[in-house]
């Protein structure tokens, strides 16, 4: 909204400036805005390049746009999309939960808790996600059975690892544990951002440490935690495509299954791309809304060209739909 208002202000200034030029009574000096020939040249080159790309997209039969439209709402594709979204949501849920626990452990004055949390973050953030996914999927090679019971005693329950670790479980473990390590650092930075005086004030009023955390510290930490968490969700949406290597029927695996039979590789990858873009666009709108909500008074308004172009659209959207 501010950007738009600023846009209007500039307009007014330009108009008065223009009037000043015509009216010699107001000022004696004529103001000529700075010229930017370089910008015009760059814009012209880029427009030509974009036009030729658009032409090839429209005219190259390899895109097979009719096939794209045919498969866009195909049952298997939509099922894959559903699994991708479900996997994104549940992995984020696990990741956020683990992240909060790991961040609190990391801050603990108990050295064992703190070291274990640091080691978890180091390991699961350091190893590539793809490797972690394949590792979990092949857990049976390391532990043929999963035994539940007291340590060093015969197990009460013994399960076959191959039966427990389905592609879904391997995907949730891989994505969730990896995400937890990233979320831990995000949550920790949020907790550290809250002034120590807040904890002291709560203590001096007789609040217990747990109540202080829940009621005083966490709500304030959210302002710092929410925006990067939105990024993580969008990152997770795309990272779920890696689980196609576990033969998990997500969006990418579904279109792979189709083009494996029909050899229409490019149009089906376009189908997947369209759905990933739709989902990440919707998520980034939600993220922008949350950022505004929790970052009030802290987010600087960008004044790049795209932001200025989109400002009226966005302000209308947030005022009408998602905003208060």
């Amino acid at each position, binding site marked *: 909204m501010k950007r738009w208002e600023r846009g209007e202000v500039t307009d007014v200034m330009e108009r008065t400036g223009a009037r000043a030029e015509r009216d010699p009574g107001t000022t004696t000096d004529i103001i000529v805005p700075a010229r930017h020939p370089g910008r015009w040249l760059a814009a012209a080159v880029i427009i030509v390049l974009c036009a030729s790309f658009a032409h090839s997209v429209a005219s190259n039969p390899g895109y097979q746009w009719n096939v794209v439209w045919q498969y866009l709402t195909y049952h298997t594709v939509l099922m894959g999309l559903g699994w991708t979204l479900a996997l994104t949501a549940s992995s984020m849920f696990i990741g956020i939960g683990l992240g909060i626990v790991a961040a609190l452990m990391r801050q603990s004055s108990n050295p064992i808790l703190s070291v274990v949390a640091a080691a978890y973050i180091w390991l699961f953030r350091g190893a590539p996600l793809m490797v972690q996914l394949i590792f979990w999927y092949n857990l049976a090679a390391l532990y043929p059975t999963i035994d539940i019971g007291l340590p060093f005693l015969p197990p009460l329950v013994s399960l076959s690892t191959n039966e427990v670790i389905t592609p879904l479980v391997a995907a949730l473990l891989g994505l969730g544990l990896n995400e937890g390590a990233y979320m831990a650092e995000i949550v920790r930075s949020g907790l550290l951002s809250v002034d120590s005086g807040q904890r*002291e*004030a709560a*203590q*001096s*009023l007789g*609040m217990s440490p747990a109540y202080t955390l829940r009621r005083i510290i966490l709500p304030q930490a959210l302002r710092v935690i929410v925006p990067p968490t939105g990024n993580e969700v969008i990152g997770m949406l795309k990272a779920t495509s890696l689980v196609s290597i576990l033969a998990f029927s997500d969006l990418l695996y579904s279109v792979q299954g189709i083009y494996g039979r029909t050899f229409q590789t490019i149009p089906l990858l376009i189908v997947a791309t369209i759905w990933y873009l739709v989902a990440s666009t919707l998520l980034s709108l939600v993220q922008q809304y949350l950022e505004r909500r929790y970052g009030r008074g802290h987010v600087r308004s960008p004044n790049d060209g795209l932001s200025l172009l989109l400002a009226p659209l966005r302000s209308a959207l947030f005022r009408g739909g998602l905003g208060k």
Partner: protein
Amino acid sequence: MTFLAPPMVEIHNLSKRFGDIEVLSDINLKVGTGEVCCLIGPSGAGKSTLIRCINYLEKVNAGTIHVNGHLVGYRRKNGRLHELTGREAARSREDTAMVFQHFNLFPHMTVLENITDAPIHVKRERRASAEAHAQALLERVGLTSKASAYPRELSGGQKQRVAIARALAVRPKLLLFDEPTSALDPELVSEVLEVMRDLAREGQTMIVVTHEMGFAREVADKVAFMDQGRIVEYGSAAEVLTRPRFDRTRDFLARVLRSHVPEAVGIGHHPA
């Protein structure tokens, strides 16, 4: 004299170190019920650390502090002092409340929520009675119209008055002030001191770390001058501030009084 009532605060041989630096050494202090005690002295003297110890925001290295007869931060058992856990320490703070230099209001809560949160969730008061009490306290600090405002909408002086109301809401027997006017614009100082003066008149026991010599002279029953982690001089306000026995106190007072504008130094003269 204060011998009739047991002292509200009793500190014996208190020492506190940060690493190798001894910030408090061998502090002994008694503050009677209903008394106002001002801690004065140069910065780095240990005044703030001392009242933070009284509220158990800092752990001590030696010595004991009793508030209202209760040992602060420890439980005595079989001749040993057992450190309290976070939960127990929280319960043990119930006789004390503190007002901070930087207010430390909770920015995500309204003024009313700031004041009622601890009474409702810590002291288990009913919401209705806690809110009625909060309204009465807001009236006392002159901010009835600000109940639904957020801290960021208040001036510094208003924030500090809300902080005082919040501290009073838990009905403390002892109220600690850590340089309550040091972060305020000069013209806002008097509105906070006015509230504190009223509290003193009503018999609230207070320990105040302050650089406001006029306030100390007018309101304090006792003044302790601290320097380099020790209480150099302790006595009635008149004794310490007008007839100091030690050169260090005299030097300090001379320096402070010279640097202040006349109105802030004179007895009871604060710009309204």
